[in-house]
């Protein structure tokens, strides 16, 4: 599969946008400007980017507690995202949902989700609707290694397979469910092996190689669109930051973190694109400057927006 130069630049830009957004969140969270909890996506950018680059606005995704990258890759509005993180009225959930509830149904983003393993059944529902209506939409379910041990995930994969639903299960195996390494939470070496239990294709890809992710997902999405049912793609990756901001990470050593930082997905693509002449230092600077301006505007928007009024607290809870 050959990716056009434009597509490669677009994917590179998305990865940088995610990285820079998360770096800003890290900064403002530490400064006490962002309430609640945030789980950063730094280091895993290639998974969301490579996956969403295959999809159209009409396709669906279900995200996780570590969802900022998925939302950005699917086209989420940085201003409304940042405002939501700041708890402001102009945010995606009117400032009342925070990081783990951001959704944009018009873009097919069916929501971040604080419930581990909560996305599978939702993705199935969206896929069932597409199948029933005869559209060619697909639903992508992002989930982590910890979620792969949840009963809901098995129920979702079984049903998707039994009903041949157009779903792509994209596993982001970052090695840890909070502090629990995968070797202590599952006896299989590869989560992709689990596809065998449902008679669906399962593949392992280098989750830090955006092109590999793109290719694997493209094949699975084609399959789903053709009506040939679901697939499982395991993307091996790593989160550079803690499980959440403030995690002391006493369960892993610095050498391990460093070894993964050396596999930085953005640096890898940047070098490759520079080498192939698709990207130049000037073009890179241009991309980064534009993103910096975009983020400045998003932060200013968030800071200047009002907080929701206390009397609005019970609004938007029930239809």
């Amino acid at each position, binding site marked *: 599969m050959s990716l056009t130069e434009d597509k490669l630049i677009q994917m590179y830009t998305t990865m940088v946008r995610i990285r820079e957004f998360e770096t800003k969140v890290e900064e403002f969270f530490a400064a006490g400007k962002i309430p609640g909890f945030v789980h950063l996506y730094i280091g895993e950018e290639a998974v969301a980017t490579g996956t969403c680059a295959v999809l159209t606005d009409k396709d669906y995704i279900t995200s996780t507690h570590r969802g900022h990258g998925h939302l950005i890759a699917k086209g989420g509005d940085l201003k409304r995202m940042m405002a939501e993180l700041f708890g402001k009225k102009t945010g995606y959930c009117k400032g009342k949902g925070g990081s783990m509830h951001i959704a944009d149904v018009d873009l097919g983003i069916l929501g971040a989700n604080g419930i581990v393993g909560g996305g599978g059944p939702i993705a199935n529902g969206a896929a069932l609707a597409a199948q029933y209506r005869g559209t060619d939409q697909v639903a992508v379910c992002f989930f982590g290694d910890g979620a792969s041990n949840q009963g*809901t995930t098995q129920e979702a994969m079984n049903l998707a397979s039994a009903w041949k639903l157009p779903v792509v299960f994209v596993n982001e195996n970052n090695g840890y469910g909070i502090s629990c390494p995968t070797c202590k939470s*599952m006896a299989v070496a590869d989560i992709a092996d689990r596809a065998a239990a449902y008679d669906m294709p399962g593949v392992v890809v280098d989750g830090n190689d955006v092109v590999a992710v793109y290719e694997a997902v493209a094949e699975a999405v084609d399959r789903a669109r053709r009506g040939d049912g679901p697939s499982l793609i395991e993307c091996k990756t790593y989160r550079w930051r803690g499980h959440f901001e403030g995690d002391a990470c006493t369960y892993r050593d610095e050498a391990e973190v460093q070894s993964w930082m050396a596999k930085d997905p953005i640096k890898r693509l940047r070098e490759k694109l520079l080498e192939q002449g698709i990207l130049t230092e000037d073009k890179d600077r241009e991309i980064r400057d534009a993103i910096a301006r975009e983020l400045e505007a998003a932060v200013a928007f968030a800071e200047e927006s009002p907080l929701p009024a206390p009397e609005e607290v019970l609004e938007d809870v029930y239809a």
Partner: protein
Amino acid sequence: MPRVPIEITSPVEYLSILKEDGTLDKALEPEIPEDLLLRLYRTMVLGRLLDERMLQLQRQGRIGTFAPIKGQEAAQLGAVAALDPGDWVVPCFRETAAQLWRGTPMENILLYFGGYEEGGRIPDDQKTLPVAIPVASQLLHAVGLGWAARYRKTGEVAMTFFGDGATSEGDFHEALNCAAVFQTPTVFVCQNNQWAISVPLSRQTRSKTLAQKAVAYEMPGIRVDGNDVLAVYAAAREAVERARAGEGPTFLECVTYRLAMHTTADDPTKYRSEEEVALWAQKDPIPRFQKYLLEKGILTQEKVEENAAWAGEAIGKAVDRYEAMRGELGDPLEMFEHHFETLPPTLQEQREELKRTLEAERMESHDA
């Protein structure tokens, strides 16, 4: 990055020893002592006859809803026969024959399905848990029991039963994963009887086998002819030995068929054809095993008849004991017990109200 095929290490095999026409694969025939073979036969027949009797009792209103085992005797008996009395059995709700093997008194089975909670009580010297109704919930209990056995180094094995429908439950996944991670001595016995109430296996899963679900957990999975008691026993014995040796859990899929209804509250003619049932009736586990024993000279026609008479009599006596016990059991007020240490006020009120109603009814019947 090129695609690298992953080598899947957990094997999935199929085992059949005694074919439906009674032909034996001599090379695979397990060595089973004669008394064990006879006990297996006797319990299969007892289970079948008790099942038939229970269906009559239910239709007469003498017991409540229950789940018939007809056709699945070999799947459950072959499995439990591989255990020691000190091992744990964690049933679902279609294991009457396994319960009989383990020594659950017949009247307890009748009491349970008659609606008397006393029937669910585990006799002090036994390690067979009561019936579990929520589908797949009991698998986790078997993992816990296995884990405890491993932790305490007791050498016990925990065997649990469930149906094909349970494999779609999240609890199934969590149980098998935990058992594999912690290498608990647990044997998962799936009685794949083709139907989860009215949902056929083809709508339950796309997998060719249920045994292959073990692959997801790096656990050995084996599929056996569940109507072949020799194959079930051989596979179960291997799984039990593996568990006892500290080599972890096994998933055993017994391919069988429920010849009767899901429960007595179900009408299977609404969703499956008579031809299908007739086809499976030919694969009945009892006649082929009986033929095997007759040919081996372990059983004679005379003994077959003797055994049937013995079973009928034992069942008759158990029904009598059950009906005698019913008179003394079943105070409706007991429904408020065993849930709370101290009853919450709303339940206290309800209990008082029921007590008054019952007393008033008693007075009325006295007056009348």
